[in-house]
């Protein structure tokens, strides 16, 4: 049986599946938050979601629009101050997975959320680093999710806001007390993982119906594909239903007031 689903849904479901039950996840707002909550509502009821606003082990009924929506505090085990969040919980090594989005990503998985163009004369000023620079280095590993496009997947990011593996792939070598870094990138077209040696991102799995050409067209460098290229498993009916209900609840909640 084949279900109807969008590329966005495919992305969210795939990203959600990456999270293991019982793991602690420091959640970025937007796509990561959607995926993490979908995981919690499906296969990973005991995943621990932590938002940088200080909300520990939160179980929002609708997706937060901001990183500090009231919903997050109301459904949290407890809420701590932001200094404590970054010091004890993130830097203190309590986070298994940091789940991030980004504006730009390069082939060594470096992330840019600072600006397009030159720093002093930006073409486009983006929001900035936020929690990402230290999430990416202090979490056990990092998952990244974003839409696949040539604007986002660039050969060299305009600015390394957040370390993937550095501009040469060696940015984590011999650095003490640093996490593994990005271990997978989930897009609406495919799943990529860094090559164990070079750290270059390699496509390991294509979503159903997506071609190599589509990925190549949407990637700003000569992207490599794994020898054993897999096909990403389709979303289940249950996953789609829960995701759609979550998004409907969210839309309704955010339309008010």
């Amino acid at each position, binding site marked *: 049986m084949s279900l109807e689903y969008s590329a966005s849904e495919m992305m969210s479901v795939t990203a959600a599946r990456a999270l293991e039950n019982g793991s602690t996840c420091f959640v970025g*707002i*937007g796509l990561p938050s959607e995926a993490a909550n979908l995981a919690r509502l499906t296969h990973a009821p005991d995943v621990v979601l932590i938002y*940088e*606003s*200080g909300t520990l082990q939160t179980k929002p009924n609708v997706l*937060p*629009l*901001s*990183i*500090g*929506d*009231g919903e*997050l*505090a*109301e459904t949290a085990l407890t*809420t*701590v*101050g*932001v*200094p404590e*969040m*970054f*010091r004890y919980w*993130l*830097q203190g090594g309590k986070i298994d997975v940091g789940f991030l989005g980004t504006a730009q990503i390069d082939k060594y998985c*470096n992330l840019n959320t*600072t600006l397009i163009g030159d*720093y002093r004369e*930006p*073409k*486009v*000023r*983006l*929001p*900035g*680093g*936020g*929690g*990402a*620079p*230290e999430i990416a*280095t*202090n979490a056990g590993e990092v998952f990244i999710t974003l839409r696949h496009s040539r604007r986002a997947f660039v050969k060299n990011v305009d*600015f*390394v*806001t*957040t*370390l993937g593996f*550095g501009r040469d792939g060696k*940015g*984590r070598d011999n*650095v*003490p*007390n*640093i996490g593994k870094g990005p271990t997978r990138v989930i897009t609406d077209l495919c799943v990529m993982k860094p090559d164990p040696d070079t750290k270059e991102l390699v496509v390991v799995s294509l979503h159903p119906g997506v071609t190599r050409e589509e990925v190549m067209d949407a990637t700003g460098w000569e992207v490599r594909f794994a020898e054993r290229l897999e096909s990403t498993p389709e979303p289940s009916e249950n996953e789609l239903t829960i995701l759609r209900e979550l998004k409907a609840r969210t839309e309704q*909640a*955010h*339309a*008010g*007031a």
Partner: protein
Amino acid sequence: MAEFLSLHDAVARYVEDGATVAMEGFTHLIPFAAGHEVIRQQKRDLTLIRMTPDIIYDQLIGAGCARKVIFSWGGNPGVGSLHRLRDAVEKGWPHKVEILEHSHAAMACAFEAGAAGLPLAVFRGYIGSELPSVNDQIKFIECPFTGERLAAVPSVRPDVSIIHAQRADRQGNVLVEGIVGVQKEAVLAAKHSIVTVEEVVDDLDAHPNACVIPGWAISAVAVAEKGALPSYTHGYYGRSNRFYKEWDAIARDRDTFTQWLDENVYRTQESAQ
């Protein structure tokens, strides 16, 4: 000891042109009413510090209050850009604004260090990031015990910090509840502080380890009902997500913005939302 003042008088007394000002509230309890009062009083050349310059800083920047912004994430949460911030940085309207940019971890630690009376914060950060190349306030030190290289940033110590909270008692002791962000740190790190509250009560009704800031650690308390709208106050009213979305269109265009400011800030008194 906290003095009970009107919001007008508190801002007039403590926010001087050229001052370094932190208006905090991590997506919750954002002091919008106080920010609008700063705009109405046409304060100028402010150095504005805030982890997450939200639309309140967009408004202050667009209104011409800011000379410099120190921040770690400047966006409209869940919506997109801060167009007034971008217009100032990218095109210099209404005038050029200098930015000094950190990560959240750095700023959170810098507020903590400011509250702790220290000149610097030390943390494990900025590894591999290019932010240190564009922010000369980021340095690195070596741990004398392990040799590990750690990041160091100057602590945040504003001339005045402004926060919004649920309530004060008659002695000016203030309860902050829910997402508490760096508000307590902002107040304790500052030379002066203004706290706006939803209400003044006889008894704070706080639990034993509540986040309560004693009145003697605050300069002024001002009542500002719904003073955090369109942000929210846990236990009082919700966030106007709709307004955050609407702000995108308002702020995109200079004329629309100016008109909004006229109608919603300049022509209103302290009750502006």
